């Protein structure tokens, strides 16, 4: 299994991006979440928003490594309708602010027009290695 949470970018502007994520039963971790009732885990929806955010950053700053950003903060991320294998999650992210600390964004994911996830997050460069700052 690969940790790719967006499949296609379908629209992009200077400060927003829309991407799709097709959920398939072929993703083996779904057998654990949940046995007999597979649903895309909420945190994977958050990662989908983050990856859409990184795709947006890559368009703004194509330098290698510029989109090597982690989810430094997540706020009021709410989950609504569930997303099941065979369904497609459409994620939209909007850049709301930039600071040294990173990129502040809002994101929403919908499936068949219903909101599955909505929230705010910040993408920032990873902090230095705590145990070996030279690394």
């Amino acid at each position, binding site marked *: 299994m690969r940790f790719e949470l967006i499949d296609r970018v379908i629209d992009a502007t200077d400060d927003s991006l829309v991407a799709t994520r097709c959920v398939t039963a072929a993703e083996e971790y779904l057998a654990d979440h949940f046995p007999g009732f597979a649903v895309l885990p909420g945190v994977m929806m958050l990662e989908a928003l983050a990856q859409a955010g990184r795709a947006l950053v890559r368009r703004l700053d194509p330098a290698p490594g510029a989109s090597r950003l982690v989810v430094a903060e997540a706020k*009021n991320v709410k*989950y*609504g309708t569930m997303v099941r294998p065979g369904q497609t999650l459409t994620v939209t992210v909007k850049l709301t602010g930039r600071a040294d600390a990173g990129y502040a964004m809002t994101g929403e994911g919908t499936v068949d027009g219903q909101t599955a996830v909505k929230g705010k997050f910040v993408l920032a460069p990873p902090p230095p290695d705590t145990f070996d700052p030279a690394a």
Partner: protein
Amino acid sequence: MAMTKEEIYEKVQGILVEALGVDDDEVTPEAKIEADLGAESIDYLDILFHFEKEFGLKIDQAELRPEAVLANEEYVNDGKITDAGMAELKKQMPFADFATLEASRSVEDFSDIFTVQVLVNFVAAKLDEQG
């Protein structure tokens, strides 16, 4: 020591800013917590948990939102609230203002009842009741 409505309002405002991720200035007395402030069902739970902690209350979600009334065929018929339904809602929710809902009678408009002021009234009523 009894809390004034202003003190309750300030605390409720702070709770809504935190729970809904909105700005201070968006939280006005007339603001509808769903239509204007983006609240969803999990947020009601979050808000009530905050009320319990902040005001020292014990609250059952049904006291704020009597969902059972809306699920009862005697009270709601084909998406419209009956006279009996309106009477039951007013009885269970004396802290709310039903003027607009009385006119439309549409179940879809029920959520608009929940304004910031109504939440403040609810807290004040619970404080009086639970001392």
